């Protein structure tokens, strides 16, 4: 009887240890360098240009297509984004975020060894749990996040885009880029012009770079899209290459009640080599900026321009 009691106690103690073991003991140093540094705004290096006046304000939608080169069902989803982009033109911005299991490069086969993953894309995928739900899936303007309803299947993107672009815009967002190929320097200027007042809402702006026309192999199981089981010369589009101002962007401003509607102009400077992707072709690249609510993560406005016109 005593032995049994001891065994029971051991089991209960072991269970308690399991709970108590869930702690993080941090040893000094308590302050470490930021591994995701953001270059300070440098208007001397990048003089702010004059933004043209905007006469028509409309809300644009952002599709984030979470994908991977070994995901056999993903080319069909990419086709949906192409159709939607054709239909909505400038009202829709598309990003193909290569992240998660199906974006991992192969270590044994050179055809699948390329890596489109980015630190920001991986972090977003972990945070929004898109890959954990499955690929292909995505988000439209990151709506539904606080309620765990942000992950949308590709066929439902169309309706979500339609609903998003029909909303009244809360702000206008303009982008101007200047690329100096000799210095490999890219200046990105954004201007947010508020059309409505917010109340105590923290806004952030994220700036990322995408690239089109990258030819690399892609797994595929849909004969209507291409050869199966692989399309060796698949043309990847909207591939996210990196985040310019950090994984979670930079604060816009905290707007007090009865804001004065003053426009906010922000300038970022970056270099293509910053992304450690020297193969990027500037003329195939786009800069995308989106303003989002820091708490709900909802993307309130998005804009896209080519790096080189």
């Amino acid at each position: 009887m005593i032995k049994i009691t001891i065994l029971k106690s051991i089991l209960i103690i072991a269970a308690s240890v399991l709970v108590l073991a869930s702690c993080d003991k941090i040893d000094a140093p308590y302050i470490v360098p930021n591994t995701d540094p953001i270059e300070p705004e440098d208007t001397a290096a990048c003089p702010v240009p004059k933004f043209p006046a905007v006469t028509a304000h409309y809300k644009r939608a952002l599709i984030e297509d979470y994908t991977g080169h070994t995901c056999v069902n993903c080319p069909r989803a990419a086709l949906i984004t192409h159709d939607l982009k054709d239909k909505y033109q400038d009202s829709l911005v598309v990003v193909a975020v290569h992240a998660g299991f199906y974006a991992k490069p192969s270590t044994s086969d050179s055809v699948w060894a390329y890596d489109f993953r980015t630190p920001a894309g991986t972090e977003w995928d972990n945070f929004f749990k898109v890959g954990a739900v499955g690929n292909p899936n995505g988000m439209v303007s990151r709506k539904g996040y606080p309620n765990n309803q942000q992950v949308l299947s590709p066929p439902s993107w169309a309706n979500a885009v339609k609903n998003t672009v029909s909303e009244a815009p809360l702000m206008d967002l303009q982008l101007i880029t200047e690329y100096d190929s000799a210095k490999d320097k890219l200046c990105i200027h954004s201007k947010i012009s508020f059309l409505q007042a917010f109340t105590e809402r923290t806004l952030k702006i994220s700036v990322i770079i995408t690239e089109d026309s990258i030819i690399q192999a892609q797994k595929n199981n849909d004969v209507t899209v291409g050869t199966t089981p692989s399309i060796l010369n698949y043309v990847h589009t909207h591939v996210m290459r990196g985040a310019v101002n950090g994984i979670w962007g930079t604060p816009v401003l905290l707007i007090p009640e009865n804001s004065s509607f003053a426009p906010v102009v922000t300038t970022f400077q970056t270099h293509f080599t910053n992304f450690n992707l020297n193969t990027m072709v500037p003329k195939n690249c786009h800069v995308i900026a989106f303003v989002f609510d820091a708490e709900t993560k909802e993307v309130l406005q998005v804009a896209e321009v080519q790096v080189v016109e």
Partner: protein
Amino acid sequence: MKTHLLTYATFLAALICIFPSLLQAQNSSIGSQVNGNFQMDAQYYRVDSAIGALPVPEKMQMNSWTNITYTSGDFNAGLRYETYLNPVNGYDPRYKGTGIPYWFVDYKTGKFQITAGHIYEQFGGGAIFRTYEEHNLGYDNALNGIRVKFTPAKGVELKGIYGTQRYFWDKGPGIVRGADADFNLKDWIPSLENSKLRVRIGGSFVSKYQADEEIYNSSQEKLMLPLNVAAGAGRIDLGYGNFGLNAEYAQKINDPNATNNFIYKKGESLLLTATYNQKGLGIILQAKRLDNMGFKSKRTETGNVLDIGYLPAITKQQTYTLAAVYPYATQPNNEMGMEAQVNYKIAKNTFLGGKYGTDIAVNFSAINSIVKELVNDTTLLDESGTLGYKSPFFKVGDTKYFRDFNIEIGHKFTKSFKLLFTYMYEEYNTAIIEGHIDDTVLVHANILVAEMTYKLSPEKALRLETQALLTQQDEGNWVMALLEYTVAPKWFVSVADQWNCGNEDTEKRFHYPLAAVAYNNDANRIQLSYGKQREGIVCVGGVCRNVPASNGFTLTITTSF
């Protein structure tokens, strides 16, 4: 969320108010009962980069649920509290949260039974309607609405349901309505009353409504969507002496959806089951055809949620670890298959039966595709916005999905020693079942299992499982051994190890050890285990997700009262 809280609060307040008055209203001899059960699975994770066990920021994750049911005569009410903070490895992350997703009230009065709240129900075999929950698989498609059961006469049961389905912590967008009628002819035809013949027939009808939405066929074309999708099914259950025959046929009208690539073809399913039973012998034969029968209450859904119909696999559910490495998953839109199972007991005191008899079970299942033919010369197979394909009903397709031949022999040698031997040959189509295409599409595997149980005393037993999975494809050969010591009814200890000894990549020949100890006390059980779990891939409806490997402790507590 506020609305949910208000709903729960109102419901609980109503229960608190209603229960005492019901108790008073009931005949005191009927009495009342409260029953419940609880389960908690908590996992503590360690990083193991070798097997691919990634860091888990919260270190520990937990799933738990508590069911409470109140019964008083013909009145029932219940609820289930669930908490997933955060969902354990392998569960859909959309379960994250805490709340009461399930509650119901139910009463019988005369020939009526009324249920309001969340309902689990099935029409016939479930081909066009079944709601159920399976916690261990993370599945729950409960119908939130009403159910009316009406029994106008003996042998007749009519059922009607109306509601929406559970979608994690929310409801699906589609409204599901349906009715079912079941007739037991033995109660209707006097000549059958004393006959060996048993006849039961039934029919059901289900309709799903979902509001219109934008589904584009191209940038210039959008699909005309049916807002109401109907399905009907008929069934017959015949029995004569030891023979039984069951058939269920279902049909669904055009239902363009994400799982069928938005084609407009009608769907069909047929399941035939024949059985024969006598002492020492049981035979089951099954045949199935599924053609475009994925039926969900959200047309753009691709995940393992919101299913209206239930289409079970007609393959043997394997329980041994290595035998379950390649499990078949029903392909609701495209499969044709058969299964045969024979159970035979060689009698005691015979040459082969020995002193205690020998049990033999032979099982074979084969699943292929259906045949798909072009609708016309200008339409591709499965092209969205078209009829998709034509399919001759009785033709079996060429694509092999799954084969399983297995034989299980159980023999008790002495009063205290029993041996169970299993041999299994499997062919498994990774492209179809797992949705990923590698160089090898079809895995061929031979699996051997020997299970020996030795009773040391009436309370104490030792059980040893040795298993081997032999294949030249996928991850190559696996072996496993498990030793279990039970001191009935309180204690249970086991140690096991799986070893991927035949992996082509010698650096990936990992061991996956597992040790567990459990203590039972009446209806309460606490189990603590430590081990490594392999990574896996789950594919449903054209969406695949990776379940990462894990390494850590699992604490499971179950109780009931």
